[in-house]
C-alpha cells in the first residue's frame, strides 16, 4: 500500500516529459535571439580569427616592421589595402598584428584581475566583519586613485613593456572586480539555499564556489566583458602616450600617436586604427550585454 501511494504520487507529477537541453545549449539558444549580441560575437570572432591567422595574411618582419621609405604615405590601393604609414610600413599588416597585442594583453589582464578580484571580493563578502573591513579599505585606497593615473604611475615606476603593462592594468582593475563580486555575494549569502547548503554540511569554500559565485556570475561576466573593452582603450591610451607597447611593435594606440602628425593630409592613418579600436570595443560591449541576458537562468522560460 505504501509503495502504491508513492507510485501514484509520482504518476500525478509525471504529467509531461520536458525536452532535455544541456545548459550550454540553452544559453546559446537564448543568446542567439539577441541580434545585436550576435553582431558583437561575429565581429569578435572575425577579430580573433584575423589576429590568430595574422602570420598567414602578412609577414610580420617584412610588412609590419621593416621600413620602406620609397613607399611611404601611400593612400589605400591595390597593394596596400589600408595604405602605408610615414615609414612605408603596410597599415593592414600593422592593424592585424596590433589586434593580436590588444586582445591578448587585455584578456590576460582581465583573467588575472578577475581571479584576484573574485577571491578578495568573495572572502570579504562571505565572512564580513573585520576581514571585510580590512580588505575593502585596501581596495578603497586603490580606488581612490583614478585608474588611468594609477596605470601611468605603475608603468612609469616599472618602465614600459608588456609585462609591466599587464601588471599595471591588472592592479587597477582588481578593486572594481572585488567590489562588484562582494556586492553580489552580499545579496546572495543570506538566501535560504545557502543556509540549506550549510545544513547539508557543505564547507565554506564549496558554498562560495558552487552556490554563491554561480548565482552572482551574471554581473561579474558583464563587468568582465565591459572591462576587456575598457582595457583595450586603456592600453591604446597608454601606448598613445608612449607608456605602453614599445615603438616598432604595432599597437593601435601607438599607431594613432604616430599618425596624428600626418592627420591633416593623410587622415586614413588615424581613421583606420581608430575604427579598429571602435569595432573591438563595440563588439565586446554588445557581447557583454547579450551574455548577461543569456546567462541568467532566472530569465529562462
Amino acid at each position, binding site marked *: 500500500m505504501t509503495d502504491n*501511494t*508513492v507510485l501514484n504520487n509520482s504518476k500525478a*507529477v509525471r504529467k509531461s516529459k520536458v525536452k532535455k537541453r544541456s545548459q550550454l545549449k540553452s544559453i546559446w539558444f537564448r543568446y542567439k535571439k539577441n541580434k545585436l549580441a550576435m553582431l558583437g560575437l561575429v565581429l569578435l570572432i572575425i577579430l580573433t580569427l584575423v589576429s590568430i591567422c595574422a602570420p598567414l595574411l602578412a609577414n610580420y618582419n617584412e610588412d609590419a616592421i621593416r621600413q620602406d621609405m620609397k613607399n611611404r604615405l601611400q593612400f589605400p590601393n591595390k597593394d596596400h589595402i589600408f595604405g602605408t604609414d610615414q615609414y612605408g610600413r603596410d597599415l593592414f599588416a600593422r592593424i592585424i598584428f596590433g589586434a593580436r597585442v590588444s586582445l591578448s594583453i587585455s584578456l590576460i589582464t582581465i583573467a588575472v584581475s578577475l581571479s584576484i578580484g573574485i577571491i578578495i571580493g568573495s572572502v570579504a563578502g562571505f565572512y564580513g566583519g573585520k576581514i571585510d573591513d580590512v580588505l575593502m579599505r585596501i581596495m578603497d585606497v586603490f580606488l581612490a586613485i583614478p585608474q588611468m593615473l594609477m596605470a601611468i604611475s605603475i608603468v612609469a615606476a616599472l618602465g614600459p613593456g608588456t609585462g609591466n603593462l599587464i601588471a599595471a592594468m591588472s592592479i587597477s582593475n582588481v578593486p572594481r572586480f572585488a567590489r562588484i563580486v562582494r556586492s553580489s555575494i552580499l545579496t546572495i549569502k543570506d538566501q*535560504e539555499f545557502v543556509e540549506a547548503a550549510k*545544513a*547539508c*554540511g557543505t564547507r565554506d569554500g564549496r558554498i562560495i564556489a558552487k552556490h554563491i559565485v*554561480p548565482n552572482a556570475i551574471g554581473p561579474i561576466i558583464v563587468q568582465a566583458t565591459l572591462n576587456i573593452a575598457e582595457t583595450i582603450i586603456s592600453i591604446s591610451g597608454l601606448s598613445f602616450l608612449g607608456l605602453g607597447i614599445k615603438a616598432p611593435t604595432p599597437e593601435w594606440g601607438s599607431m594613432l600617436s604616430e599618425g596624428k602628425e600626418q592627420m591633416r593630409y593623410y587622415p586614413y592613418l588615424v581613421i583606420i586604427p581608430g575604427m579598429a579600436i571602435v569595432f573591438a570595443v563595440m563588439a565586446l560591449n554588445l557581447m557583454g550585454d547579450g551574455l548577461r541576458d543569456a546567462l541568467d537562468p532566472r530569465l529562462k522560460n
Partner: protein
Amino acid sequence: MADKLLEIKDLNVIYETDESTVYAVNGLNLSINEGETLGLVGETGAGKTTTALSIMKLLPEKIGLIKKGEIILDDINVTNATEHDMRLLRGDTVSMIFQDPMTSLNPTLTVGEQIAEVLELHKKDMNKEQVQKRVEEILELVGLPAERKSEYPHQFSGGMKQRVVIAIALACEPKLLLADEPTTALDVTIQAQVLEMMKELKDKLNTAMLLITHDLGVVAETCDRVAIMYAGEIIELGTVEDIFNGNKHHPYTDGLFGSLPDLTKKTRRLSPIEGLMPDPTDLPSGCPFHTRCNKCMDICKTEKPKITVDNSHMIKCHLFK
C-alpha cells in the same frame, strides 16, 4: 522503550543585539527516541525555529548564543562540538527541511546536482555512478520521475520543489529530520500529499522527526508525541492522545484548541487567546503565560511553575500539583 536519539537538557538560547537581549529559548527540555515523530507546536516567536537551529548549531553568527544547557544528538554533545564535527554531522545524521521550498534550492544547479552534493559530502566511498544511481532512486522515492534530475528548480512547481528538498534531506538517510514548517508554503491539497509522503518515507527509513508547525491538524495526523511551546519553554508535552483527548491541560493548550473551529459543537464565535506573546526581551516574572491566562492565580505572578508528570503527560502549570 527505544533509545534516545536526541536529548536537550535545560537549553537557553539568547539573541544578543546592540539594543537588547532576546531570550528566545528558556530552559527547554526535550527528547526524541529513534524513529519517533515529535510535533513542536506554538505561536510565532515561541522559539520553535531557534530550537531547531540550535540542534544544527546554525544560529546566526555572533548574535545567537547557546547560553546554558546541553544538546546530545546520537551520543555527540552538539553544544561543544567543533565546527568541523558539526559539518560532518549536518546532512548525515541530522538534516533540515526549510519552510520555503521556493528559496531553499539553488537556482543555478540542477536538482540532481543538488541531491548529489549531499552524497558527495558524506558518502565518500561512493563513485560517480553510484551517486547518480542513488540520486535517481531518491527522486523516485519522493515521487518524481528520475529523468527530471537534469532540470533546474525553476522548472518545478512548489510542491515538487518541496519534494526535492525532502529528497536532499533524506539522501543520506539521516537519523533525525528537522522539518521547520514544511507545508506552510504549500496549498492544502499539496500539503496533504507531502505530509503523507513524509510519513511513509519516515517509516521506511526509520527516521526520527521533529515537526515544527502551528497547524494542530497536521500534528494529529503525523505525530507520536506533541510538545506545546510558549515563550521559549515547553509548557505541555505528551502523546497525541494525551494532548488531543486528555482532560487535563495547560490553560494555553486549552486556548489553542479553543481558537480552532470544531465541527461537532455549535458555537457562534471562536474563542482566541487574548493578548499577545510576551516581549522576549522582557519576559514577565513567574509563569510566562500569566499575563494572558484566564485561570491566573497569585502564585503564578511570582513563582515559576514546576513540572507535573502523569505517565507520558507533562504539564508545567500551578493548577496541577
